[in-house]
């Protein structure tokens, strides 16, 4: 094993597991399962096979959740390169923009991803995993180091995506906090149906690797029954899922759900605000465990932690500030209360983006999120400052309207946003996704809003739509709403 002059990186996490639990199952996946020793060997082989990619610092990776993805991810890092993570669902335009921005030398991808790229001229070489395996290994012990681990582009809910490069130091800091706050250990079996090209899923993987738990990597959460059955099949102790998945679970029979979750000690969720009802229901469903969430950004992962307890309220909070992190609320130009974050989990700069770097001031990240602390130090989010709707001088966050509208039977989903108005500057518009066979009409929505919202928050326009534009993680792409 090699020694390092700086603190632990992800490969060190794996090396520690190989030392302590070489024959323990590290990864369970429909492609194939691996022990820690096997995983380490595969990673070393992969790094050796990509030695010929030696002109640039970045290699792009596009693959669905799979053992090959894990090997590719760790293998690129082990070779001293930065792995540029790309969603398999990416559009052609975004792909070309990201490749150019990342200055990547090549794309390594799965067979499925390659088929989707068939008609895309990426301008750089494209290799399937099988192509890499067929390359000769130039050097067996070729572990190299780089301060940066991976590059990803922000979800772009309010603007065009920005490149965010995450360092090993940030990963180590964040992972240690996750372990400390949420009690992960080598005894855990973690079911993970989240996309691995995003901070939430990737953070869960890093945690599993750090403590030496077994990771059950599912392709996605589309088949809810399969996710639930996996909990039992693999004797899972934790599950990571987005709030939308948890809310869908609630449609199952309560007794059935309680049985599936009987041995689960932790359900971790994130990415969008959790409906209060979902929190309350899961508090009851988890007999031996807790629902938890955190607040963070790609640029500042896991900045707070919240463990929902049966004995306390705060069901709409994202928790207390994480250890070693500072958060302050700053009044902005529009009297917004913007959240600023500082800590070892925060990036020092964006990737080749001087304009975005203006959001980083003396180590503080100006998040663009609006929030406040209550007297007990619990952080509450109110929305984004660039989502604020200004109706005749009255400031409104979309979230407060959406939460009210979501209470109406027949509403599956809703997005509130501002549209221009000659007199008021902006007025509120709703795009509403109706439940199938619902007889919901605009009048019912307006009547409900009149009873539950201040008059300046009443939507002036309502459209029924088939769906809302969203990121992989269920966040509404507000800049696409009209």
């Amino acid at each position, binding site marked *: 094993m090699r020694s390092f002059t700086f603190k632990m990186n992800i490969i060190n996490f794996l090396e520690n597991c190989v030392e302590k639990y070489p024959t323990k199952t590290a990864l369970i996946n429909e492609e194939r399962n691996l022990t820690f020793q096997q995983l380490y060997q595969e990673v070393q082989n992969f790094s050796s096979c990509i030695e010929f990619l030696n002109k640039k610092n970045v290699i792009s990776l596009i693959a669905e959740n799979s053992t090959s993805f894990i090997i590719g991810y760790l293998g690129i890092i082990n070779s001293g390169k930065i792995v540029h993570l790309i969603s398999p669902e990416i559009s052609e335009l975004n792909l070309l923009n990201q490749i150019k921005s990342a200055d990547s030398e090549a794309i390594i991808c799965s067979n499925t991803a390659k088929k989707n790229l068939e008609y895309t001229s990426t301008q750089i070489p494209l290799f399937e995993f099988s192509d890499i395996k067929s390359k000769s290994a130039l050097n067996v012990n070729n572990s190299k180091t780089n301060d940066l681990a991976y590059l990803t582009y922000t979800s772009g809910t309010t603007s065009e995506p920005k490149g965010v490069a995450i360092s090993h130091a940030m990963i180590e800091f964040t992972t240690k906090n996750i372990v400390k706050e949420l009690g992960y250990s080598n005894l855990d079996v973690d079911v993970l149906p989240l996309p691995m090209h995003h901070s939430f899923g990737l953070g869960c993987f890093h945690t599993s690797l750090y403590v030496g738990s077994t990771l059950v990597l599912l392709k996605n959460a589309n088949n809810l029954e399969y996710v639930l059955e996996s909990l039992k099949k693999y004797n899972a102790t934790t599950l990571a899922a987005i709030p939308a998945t948890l809310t869908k679970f609630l449609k199952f029979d309560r007794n059935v759900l309680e049985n599936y979750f009987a041995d689960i000690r932790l359900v971790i969720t994130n990415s969008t605000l959790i409906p209060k009802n979902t929190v309350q229901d899961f508090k009851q469903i988890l007999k031996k465990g807790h629902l938890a969430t955190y607040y963070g950004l790609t640029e500042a992962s896991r900045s707070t932690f919240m463990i929902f307890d049966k004995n306390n309220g705060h069901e709409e909070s994202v928790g207390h500030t994480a250890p070693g992190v500072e958060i302050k609320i700053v009044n902005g130009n529009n009297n917004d209360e913007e959240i600023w974050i500082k800590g070892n989990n925060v990036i020092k700069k964006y990737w080749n983006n001087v304009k975005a770097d203006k959001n980083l001031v003396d180590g503080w990240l100006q998040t663009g999120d609006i929030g406040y602390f209550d007297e007990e130090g619990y952080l509450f989010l109110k929305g984004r400052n660039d989502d604020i709707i200004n109706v*005749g001088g009255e400031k409104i966050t979309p979230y407060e309207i959406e939460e009210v509208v979501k209470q109406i039977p027949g509403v599956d989903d809703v997005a509130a946003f501002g549209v221009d108005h000659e*007199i*008021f500057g902006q007025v509120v518009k709703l795009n509403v996704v109706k439940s199938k066979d619902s007889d919901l009409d605009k009048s019912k929505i*307006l*009547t409900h809003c009149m*009873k539950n919202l201040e*008059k300046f928050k*009443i939507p*002036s*326009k309502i459209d029924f739509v088939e769906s809302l534009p969203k990121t992989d993680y269920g966040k509404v792409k507000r800049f696409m709403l009209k």
Partner: protein
Amino acid sequence: MIVAGVLSNDSEVEGIIKNIFLEVFPNLSEAEFSWNKEQKDYESWDSFTQLNLITFVESKFDIALSLEESIDIKSAHDLLKCVRSHLK
């Protein structure tokens, strides 16, 4: 005359508009409602209230009022007159 999918006559239109006023002014009772009571005589008829009245009638009757029409509405009677002009 068809209004938002519902067969309607003049008294139905009046009924809908009256109900809109009772919804938008939650403190207004049926007994206090008057077709000729003007904006200045309402305690809480501000610009947001005006906007909400317009939003409700547009939704209920599936019509679109112009900015000028919206500004001219100062009473329930004005609103009724405006709606009738759109339904003809």
